[in-house]
């Protein structure tokens, strides 16, 4: 076990050090010199988006609510790949033409409003910190299962320190190249875990049938607890399409493409990977019912299944795979957030970005120590915080890229009204008609954008 972990970290730090030698200027550090080819861009987009939520949260949610989890995740995320064309292509072009580095610079460039840029970037930073902390929590779980003497919180802090070190040394190049390595481990580990668990349970068919006999409702929607209603299904479908490109770690990847070919390849390989990669943790979570595994925390069900039904070597590899999934997301989040804060407040200086990276990692640790509610689970925490907060940015960026009458007042009003709904829905019960509150926020921010832009339009 320890050999796997040491080898994994050795490779990460080696890539970090190698990348630092290859970085010559701020654009190299922040955006890898805008030089990611098709496969690197594909792997870095996938590894960045597939997080602790994918590796641990999917299995946990499937354990409690059934196979509907595959539908709500796979469909919306696959359709989201079209945003690599709708948003990614334009962002890439504008970034190359104007030298933009942060997402908000596009807003400022089009609307000539620094306030709008700060609001846009500020929302991204604010709502990504809980997501970053979730990665740390996931790491804490994994280390705690591997080494019970390390508490969840201590493990979370250790991993955040490790991530900070290699991000500080190598910037975007380190994040991108480690994503290729980590993405490979993550995919291999998940496939092997699935195959070995299936073998131990008497084959895939027997494993599913045993679970079906134990709890048939796992295999239909709305699932055992009635969670996957039609409104929820539609909500998540739209949420992934509009929220995922607003993750700063995804948005900033659009700038890093070497050419449009990189974006094209990423776009069509993305759903292909999702088709099976999202199914595997979901089905393992469901099989846990047939296997009668005792689960205290649903988010640990995948690791418990692997520990129980796969050889020790596969268990170790799966642990490293899970670490890879969350670290590849956390490093990109740290880098993109520190890039935004540095470029917006202090200017495009690499050394300042390194300091900001360390400060942000500290914030994430504080969230872990003080603010995380383990009863909410990974998905519950993100659905309440990050996803609704970021989805309201999508109308203003789409209007900025495609609608000539959109203006700064419309965009500012859209973002503020959407966030007001997000805030209100976290405090009081708003009428949502069975949809996620994030959908109401998306609707309100879209309507406000159109109305205010029209009312304040000047020829």
């Amino acid at each position: 076990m320890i050999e796997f972990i040491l080898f994994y970290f050795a490779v990460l730090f080696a890539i970090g050090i190698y990348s630092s030698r290859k970085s010559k200027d701020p654009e190299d550090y922040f955006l890898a010199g805008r030089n990611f080819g098709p496969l690197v861009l594909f792997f870095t987009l996938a590894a960045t988006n597939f997080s602790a939520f994918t590796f641990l949260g999917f299995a946990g949610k499937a354990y409690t609510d059934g196979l509907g989890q595959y539908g709500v995740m796979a469909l919306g995320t696959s359709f989201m790949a079209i945003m690599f064309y709708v948003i990614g292509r334009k962002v890439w072009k504008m970034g190359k033409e104007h030298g933009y580095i942060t997402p908000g610079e596009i807003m400022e460039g089009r609307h000539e409003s620094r306030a709008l840029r700060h609001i846009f970037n500020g929302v991204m930073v604010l709502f990504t910190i809980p997501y970053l902390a979730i990665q740390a929590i996931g790491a804490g779980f994994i280390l705690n299962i591997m080494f019970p003497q390390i508490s969840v919180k201590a493990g979370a802090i250790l991993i955040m320190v490790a991530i900070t070190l290699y991000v500080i040394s190598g910037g975007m190049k380190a994040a991108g190249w480690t994503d290729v390595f980590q993405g490979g481990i993550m995919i291999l580990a998940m496939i092997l875990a699935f195959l070995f668990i299936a073998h131990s349970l008497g084959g895939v068919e027997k494993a599913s049938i045993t679970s079906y006999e134990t709890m048939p409702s796992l295999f239909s929607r709305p699932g055992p607890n009635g969670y996957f209603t039609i409104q929820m299904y539609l909500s998540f479908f739209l949420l992934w399409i509009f929220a995922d490109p607003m993750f700063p770690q995804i948005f900033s990847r659009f700038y890093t493409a070497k050419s449009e070919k990189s974006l094209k390849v990423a776009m069509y390989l993305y759903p292909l990977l999702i088709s099976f990669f999202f199914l595997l943790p979901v089905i393992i979570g469901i099989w846990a019912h047939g296997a009668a595994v005792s689960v205290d925390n649903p988010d640990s069900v995948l690791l418990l299944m692997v520990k129980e039904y796969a050889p020790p070597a596969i268990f170790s590899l799966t642990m490293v795979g899970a670490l890879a999934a969350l670290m590849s997301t956390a490093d990109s989040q740290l880098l993109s957030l520190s890039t935004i804060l540095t470029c917006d407040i202090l200017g495009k200086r690499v050394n300042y970005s390194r300091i900001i990276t360390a400060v942000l990692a500290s914030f994430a640790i504080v969230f872990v120590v003080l603010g995380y509610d383990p009863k909410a689970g990974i998905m519950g925490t993100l659905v309440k915080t990050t996803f609704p907060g970021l989805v309201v940015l999508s109308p203003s960026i789409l209007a900025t890229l495609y609608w000539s009458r959109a203006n700064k007042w419309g965009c500012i009003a859209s973002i503020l009204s959407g966030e007001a709904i997000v805030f209100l829905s976290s405090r009081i019960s708003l009428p949502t008609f069975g949809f996620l509150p994030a959908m109401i926020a998306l609707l309100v921010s879209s309507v406000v954008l159109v109305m205010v832009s029209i009312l304040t339009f000047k020829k």
Partner: protein
Amino acid sequence: MNKWWAVLAVMALISMDFWNWEKSEPFIFFLPYWAWQIFFITISLSIIFAIFAKQGWRDKND
């Protein structure tokens, strides 16, 4: 361009398979029918996007 959006809209409509709610059968291999439908929709999207990247996504002049 419009034909590509039409294709995407059809795929989205098929994705919202409300008629399969409350159903877990027929079971094919180790999954219910509707889960295979999702699996093949995602594979189909990959193929559609690949064709779109070749024919509909113009690198210049747009």
